[in-house]
């Protein structure tokens, strides 16, 4: 081995030892889901196991940190009622009161006409065996008692402390300088009640100030042929209106640059996207577009994406970027403004907040099983798009009155045709006060495609700028 080889090997060895020591000494306690174990605990199809209880955050998060992230449940529930003004179970049971908790089969439809009154019309059609061309029907379900669902205690307390501070302008748009941590309008009312509900939906922060998880899914065509599959690792860090330390803005940069949140999504599948990392910096001001970047593993390049390209369909998918978290589109008076109308406030029978993850998809016929439904008080909002160049002409949004999570959303094109629909099942981890995405079913009714994603994530209070940066992206990439 010549002298240069020896020298280089020696330097590398010294560096390795040196950095190894530094790393060990300065290691911060971190945790995250194990993707392999996640797949072992719950397969994508034909797996009824209750993986949320088997692979609960308390098995992953170190005890000291877990204790810091959990709260007194009775206190949470009491304060949640104070925040929103009611408990969910007090607002249901009035429509079709004869429909009680229990198990129901599609064969019983004629026996229980009240169920049709209770379900969202476009969801009622799913109460059938699986059949072409659209997936995610469910032949049976169980109605479970309505339960109160509470946010984390810091989130509730922030909402109580700052109630009434967030203001809207004369057109119903939020005055960002008045917005404080917590639910902006816990008791929506008045002329702009519909807007307030939408702002609550987009600012509920129910997953917490930081989140890490995995999402797996498939897209099928009208003959139930798989046209796309994906697996993603998701990291999310809230940068403003935080309710856990650092409270408010994450750092000075977030305050000065008015950054709202940052999200990093690494693709683990399919092969041609493997190693790609999407990185977004969401900004507070209504007319400030998101900064989007992508590390393209196939080209080993960092590229800037256009913040305006949010209406494009993701390849092989039924979804567009604007439909992230069901309705991620920013409310703006200048960029695709909406006219919002609250068209109903009533209870619906919707997917229950899952506490065990027992729901599963059957590969044969793309049927849902272990489906639990719950009476939930909901707002129904019609959002009419005022700019004819937007992909949608109208959205119909069903929002839980207690948690302000979107239970279903249906989007119509500019010709008034039903185009895309989304239905969500949420995971509810009670002592953490975390309401996170779990099962999301999407449909493209015009092209007759179905897509479903299964997501599981946990709070990761150690997440910081280091992880959500150029360096963090490159360390995440393959």
């Amino acid at each position, binding site marked *: 081995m010549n002298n*240069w*080889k020896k020298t*280089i090997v020696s330097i590398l060895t010294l*560096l*390795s030892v040196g*950095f*190894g020591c*530094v*790393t060990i000494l300065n290691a911060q306690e971190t945790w995250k889901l*194990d993707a*392999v*174990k996640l*797949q*072992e605990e719950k397969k*994508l*199809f034909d797996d009824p196991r209750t993986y949320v209880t088997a692979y609960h955050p308390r098995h992953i998060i170190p005890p000291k940190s877990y204790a810091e992230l959990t709260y007194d449940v009775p206190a949470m529930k009491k304060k949640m009622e104070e925040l929103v003004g009611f408990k969910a179970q007090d607002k249901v049971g009035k429509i079709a009161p004869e429909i009680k908790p229990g198990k129901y089969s599609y064969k019983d439809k004629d026996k229980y006409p009240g169920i049709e009154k209770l379900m969202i019309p476009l969801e009622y059609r799913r109460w059938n065996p699986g059949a072409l061309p659209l997936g995610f029907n469910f032949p049976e379900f169980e109605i479970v008692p309505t339960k109160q669902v509470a946010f984390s205690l810091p989130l509730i307390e922030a909402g109580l402390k700052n109630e009434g501070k967030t203001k809207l302008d004369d057109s119903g748009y939020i005055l960002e300088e008045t917005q404080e941590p917590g639910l902006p309008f816990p008791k929506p009312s008045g002329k702009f009640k519909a807007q307030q509900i939408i702002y609550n939906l987009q600012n509920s922060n129910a997953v917490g100030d930081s989140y890490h998880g995995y999402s797996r899914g498939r897209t099928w065509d009208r003959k139930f*042929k*798989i*046209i*796309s599959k994906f*697996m993603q690792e998701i990291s999310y860090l809230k940068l403003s209106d935080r309710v856990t330390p650092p409270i408010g803005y994450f750092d*000075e*940069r977030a305050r000065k*640059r008015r950054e709202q949140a940052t999200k990093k999504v690494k693709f*683990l599948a*399919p*092969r*041609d996207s*493997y190693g790609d990392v999407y990185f977004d*910096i969401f900004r507070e001001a209504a007319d400030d577009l998101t*900064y989007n*970047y992508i590390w393209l593993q*196939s*080209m*080993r*390049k960092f*590229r*800037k994406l*256009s*913040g*305006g*390209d949010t*209406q*494009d*369909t993701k*390849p092989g*998918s039924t979804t567009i970027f604007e439909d992230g978290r069901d309705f991620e589109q920013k409310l703006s008076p200048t960029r*695709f403004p909406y006219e919002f109308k609250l068209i109903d406030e009533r209870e619906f029978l919707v997917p229950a907040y899952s506490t065990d993850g027992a729901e599963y998809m059957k590969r044969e016929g793309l049927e849902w099983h272990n489906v639990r439904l719950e009476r939930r008080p909901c707002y129904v909002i019609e959002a009419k798009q005022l*700019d004819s*160049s*937007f*992909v949608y002409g109208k959205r119909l949004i069903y929002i839980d009155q207690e948690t302000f999570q979107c239970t279903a959303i249906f989007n119509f094109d500019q010709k008034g045709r039903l185009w895309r629909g989304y239905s969500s099942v949420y995971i509810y981890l009670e002592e953490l006060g975390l309401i996170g995405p779990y099962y999301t079913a999407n449909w*493209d009714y015009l092209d007759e495609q179905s897509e479903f994603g299964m997501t599981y994530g946990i709070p990761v209070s150690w997440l910081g700028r*280091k992880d959500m*940066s*150029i*360096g*963090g992206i*490159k360390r995440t990439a*393959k």
Partner: protein
Amino acid sequence: MKKKLILSLFLLAIMAICNGNITQAEIYNVAGKEVHILGQISQTFNYGFKDTYDYEKGINTVLTDALLDAGVILNDELHVNTIVGLSVDWIYDFKHGDDSWGRKGLNLSRDRMYFDDEYWQVLKELHATWTPGNFLFRVGKQAVTWGLIDGPNILNQINPEDGRRGETEIEFENSVIPIWMIRAEYNPGIYNAFLNDLNIQFIFNPNADFIPTQQLEPGPDTNGIFAPAVGEGFGSFDKTEIERDEWDSENFEYGLQFQAFIEGAIVNLNYFKGTANEYVSEMDMEAAIGNIMDHGDPFRYDSIGLAHLPIIVHWPDQEFFGGYISRDMQSWTFMPGKRTPILKFECSYELDKEFEVNSDDVMAGAPPFIEKDVFTWGAGIEWNINIPYITARGNGMTFNSSYITSRILDYDRRLGSPRDDTFLVFIVNTKYLSARLTPEFMLVRDMEANENLYTLSAEYIYNSSITVSGGLKKYDGPSIVEDSSSLGLFQNKNHAFFKITYQF
């Protein structure tokens, strides 16, 4: 025998994985460690439209490319990745013994073009990555890409490339050649109102194994049907290569990159010192004189009458600095759909680049090489626009255009290269059928030579595993090849292509 063994082992590995439980799991648990295994196999067919001295009408390429991409995560900060590949152009078997193939000398390119069995062609990447704290260290055979503009490389000069098949539709993993190097990165945690993020990259190549760019060489006997048209009867060069000594400090390469997010834009500053990936050449006077003495001209003639010019090649030093900026213009919302464009600008200043001198001037006493500085810059725009009645609901039409120009400073008329070299690249595509079908048109234009290369193609996602694509490539420009010609060297090679890819 060696080739068949490699092929068999590779196919066995792929079959084993395909037969494994990959339908639900994308990652695996092997001895308690997280393992990712992915791959793809693609089959490409090219169909030529013209029968000429350097091209075959009909199917003239039957290229199989297989890639296996695997990684193991040893812990949160340490992972090892590899990509192995296999490329076989079966046309050499199908055309074995074919009169036309043999008469044109295409069969003589079998060694170089049939089966990629050099270790560095099979073992594409192998590296270990360690990410302690704000650092990243990657050691091994890897690819590092600089630059952003689509088209001729401006900053992207680190890795050699495999240009043997010219404009064939091949993946990045097959077009870029990873080399043995060390990459170190540091993210200093600077997050303020102006400089939103900063990342510093240092690369070091000790030249453990010198692998240059596999250039598109003249001569059907070396580059098969892809060889540029330099005139009937001309074969490959008889090359004497002066390679760089391995592990020699004089041949070490260093690169430094500062990458930042500033006001939402990506901004890069780059510096490189090392060795050029492409060679420069001079006539091998001794061999040429020997040929002149023998039969009156400097060429060596082979058994089928192809003329081979003897040359000496070496890989010169290279040093450049430059940078790029890319930003989306979020205030430019005046187009339908309010989609905003991305603007890009990239430049490099290369010091003392070595150029070949015209052979006539060399014969008259000029040195074979002259060094000159070169300034290259490129500007690009990428814009996704809704076009009523043309674009599908929800999808715009993407226009991606780049203008790249290079100027040799303090130009010397004796140089074999033109002073200015300018290209325009124009790509337009859109999506239909829920983004499963992507038609695309691409134009590459040599502005000085007035030559164009058109590509019309479409890609269709059949299902989650299979993608099919196909299209046409056509040259348009002067029929006489000038010294300044670039795209014109491929004027006989208009063809259709079809490719099917299976991913797993």
